[in-house]
């Protein structure tokens, strides 16, 4: 086309003029822009005449980004958040359990008897779907309603970029991008969101590392599992007045293990499958802003707590039905669920877990949130502690943590089971939403597969070794 030729000669002219403009044209242009910006800013901004006063922001930064104290403060701060969450969630959890389980469930049973619902429909609806959902709400709502606002307050205050700043150096040494600290932070909320947040990383190599390792940031679907198991098993190992602190430390320990794994796996990937240069970037430490407490609490309740809870409920409803059907559908006189548990039990033993936990993790692939409710339902079923009149597979109604503990101990749980469940909860395949997000973001089946199976394999290896060492020393 003639038009095209014309443009080609325009580009030719431009090329020639570039020689005239000189080699450092780009730098010169930048300098001109900066000089202009400085001149304009200087003209319209009046700084206070007094000498630079005590600068609060800078003083805080000197402490929170201190090479040594910064890390200590970071760990202390997150421990404090978990401690508040753990010790604050117990009481409201008990209330909700009383309301939904002790009062709601018998009432619904009476209603269904009144209108003469067939036993199987009554079972699927009330003993399956209703109870699973009620469990999800009473186990998850209180810790989330405390944890998310606290986390969001830290975020609004401006603390997260400081965490990224502290971690940047380690990420660089692992061969990963410093901005991965930010996507990891998002992952502590939700891994699917964390995977999307890796878009801030420009280099595809470093982005893949960030995507694959995001799963090691403990997401909010897994926090409740950690918090519950830690406070039930590990909290009881120490005197009562230390229980809250010890469980908080255990949860922080698992979260830190996740951070450590993020570094270790990033390091491994950047030396094997994803070799390449580390890119540099500049990270701005934004000014501290007093968070607007009420608004933060409101939005984090709406945006995060209710959102996550809703997702959990949506998955808990069908899962409850499936569990009930598996518990009541029989093959050769034994229920399907018992077949699965019996089949997976030996594998579970090797991993320091048990068949029930493994079945729960298969049921919970769509949402990690329902792991604990599923485990409780399956234990009641397999240890035949269910209410005889209600059919098997009814979740036990638990009024207190002590009862949950005794139920789990009757199911053969030991401290090892608790520790390995916490480890496995951290290190296993991402939930299906995250897997789908990884596929959408990478557009590659291969990397989606790596991101899904690598953590699962690692989880098997780690729990296996912990279990074998435990068996060796503790018998």
């Amino acid at each position, binding site marked *: 086309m003639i038009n095209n030729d014309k*443009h080609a000669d325009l580009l030719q*002219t*431009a090329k020639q003029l570039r020689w005239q403009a000189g080699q450092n044209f780009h730098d010169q242009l930048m300098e001109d822009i900066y000089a202009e910006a400085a001149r304009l800013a200087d*003209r319209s*901004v009046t700084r*206070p005449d007094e000498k630079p006063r005590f600068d609060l922001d800078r003083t805080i930064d000197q402490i929170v980004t201190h090479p040594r104290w910064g890390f200590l403060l970071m760990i202390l701060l997150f421990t404090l958040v978990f401690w508040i969450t753990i010790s604050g969630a117990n009481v409201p959890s008990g209330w909700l359990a009383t309301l939904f389980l002790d009062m709601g469930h018998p009432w619904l049973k009476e209603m269904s008897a009144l209108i003469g619902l067939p036993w199987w429909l009554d079972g699927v609806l009330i003993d399956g779907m209703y109870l699973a959902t009620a469990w999800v709400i009473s186990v998850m709502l209180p810790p989330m309603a405390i944890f998310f606002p606290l986390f969001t307050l830290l975020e609004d205050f401006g603390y997260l970029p400081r965490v990224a700043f502290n971690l940047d150096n380690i990420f660089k040494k692992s061969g990963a991008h410093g901005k991965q600290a930010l996507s990891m932070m998002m992952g502590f909320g939700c891994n699917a969101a964390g995977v999307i947040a890796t878009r801030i990383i*420009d280099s595809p190599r470093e982005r893949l590392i960030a995507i694959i390792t995001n799963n090691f940031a403990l997401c909010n679907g897994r926090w409740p599992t950690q918090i519950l198991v830690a406070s039930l098993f590990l909290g009881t190992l120490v005197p009562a007045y230390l229980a809250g602190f010890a469980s908080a430390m255990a949860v922080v320990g698992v979260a830190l293990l996740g951070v450590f794994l993020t570094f270790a796996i990033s390091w491994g990937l950047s030396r094997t499958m994803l070799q390449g240069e580390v890119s540099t970037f500049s990270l701005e430490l*934004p000014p501290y802003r007093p968070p607007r407490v009420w608004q933060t609490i409101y939005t984090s309740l709406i945006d995060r707590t209710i959102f996550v809870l809703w997702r959990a409920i949506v998955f808990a409803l069908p899962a409850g039905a499936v569990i009930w059907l598996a518990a009541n559908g029989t093959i050769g006189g034994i229920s399907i669920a018992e077949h699965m548990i019996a089949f997976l039990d030996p594998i579970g033993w090797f991993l320091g877990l048990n068949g029930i936990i493994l079945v729960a993790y298969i049921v919970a692939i769509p949402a990690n949130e329902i792991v604990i409710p599923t485990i409780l339902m399956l234990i009641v079923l397999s240890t035949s502690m269910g209410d005889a009149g209600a059919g098997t597979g009814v979740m036990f109604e638990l009024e207190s943590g002590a009862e949950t503990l005794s139920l789990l101990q009757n199911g053969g749980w030991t401290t090892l089971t608790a520790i390995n469940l916490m480890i496995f909860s951290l290190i296993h395949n991402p939930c299906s939403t995250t897997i789908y997000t990884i596929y959408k973001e990478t557009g590659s089946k291969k990397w989606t597969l790596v991101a899904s199976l690598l953590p699962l394999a690692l989880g098997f290896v780690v729990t296996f070794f912990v279990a074998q060492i435990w068996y060796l020393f503790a018998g």
Partner: protein
Amino acid sequence: MKLDDQKQTPLPCESCPVHHAGNLMKLGVDMTDWDFVVALAGNPNTGKSTVFNALTGLRQHTGNWPGKTVGRAEGGFDYDAHRYKIVDLPGTYSLLSTSYDEEIARDFILFGQPDVTVIVVDATRLERNLNLVLQVLQITDRAVVALNLMDEARRHHLEVDDHRLARDLGVPVVPMAARHGEGIDLLLKAISDVANGRTVCRPRRIQIESPAVQQAVTQLEAELHDRFPNLPNSRWVALRLLDGDVQIAEAIRSGELGNLNRAETVSQAAEVAQS
């Protein structure tokens, strides 16, 4: 008390007839039949998402860390009988280098041809923020500067002369504290004035010091102007070509830049037809 302070000294605008944010209707994600497109640009962490939320009524999560907005968010609002579609661009420090974020922001301002580009600026870090403002003003001459975080500036005892800044930049400057809803009404007014052509911007162009470069720019700009008489930013395109910007060269080769003129004339024709 801070709150009492604010009550004692009401903003002069509150008694002024311009103050009618009541005409704002937040439309959320409803962007049908828009009359104008507004782009929201700015450095990271200046409160773009807060402004976006205040205008659309959406609750795009805002966070105090750079890079919160990935990709771009869109929403709608209705003000003074016109419907606006607003696009929240990712926060960037410049439009010159080639990171993914900067590319999205630049491409939208250049090829998306928004009717108004709102540049959200951190009043406490004006110098660094003006770098981006100056760059945006090379691309478009329909812009409004939202001088945000004025509350922070007051806290640090900084005085920012928004009138002076507006004169220097050649575009409207609106002081704001979007977190507290302060200045939203004035921003709406400024957007609508620029969109409807009631305010004509004369944006500041970058002064080039080196005579050799100046001559090259002038020559190339003249050639561009001959070829694409309707191009609103031939000088900027010339600068990009001299900088060896492959994307812009490609846009010229493919005729995409040429199409920009046509789009411009089409929308002008549509405006004529409407009135």
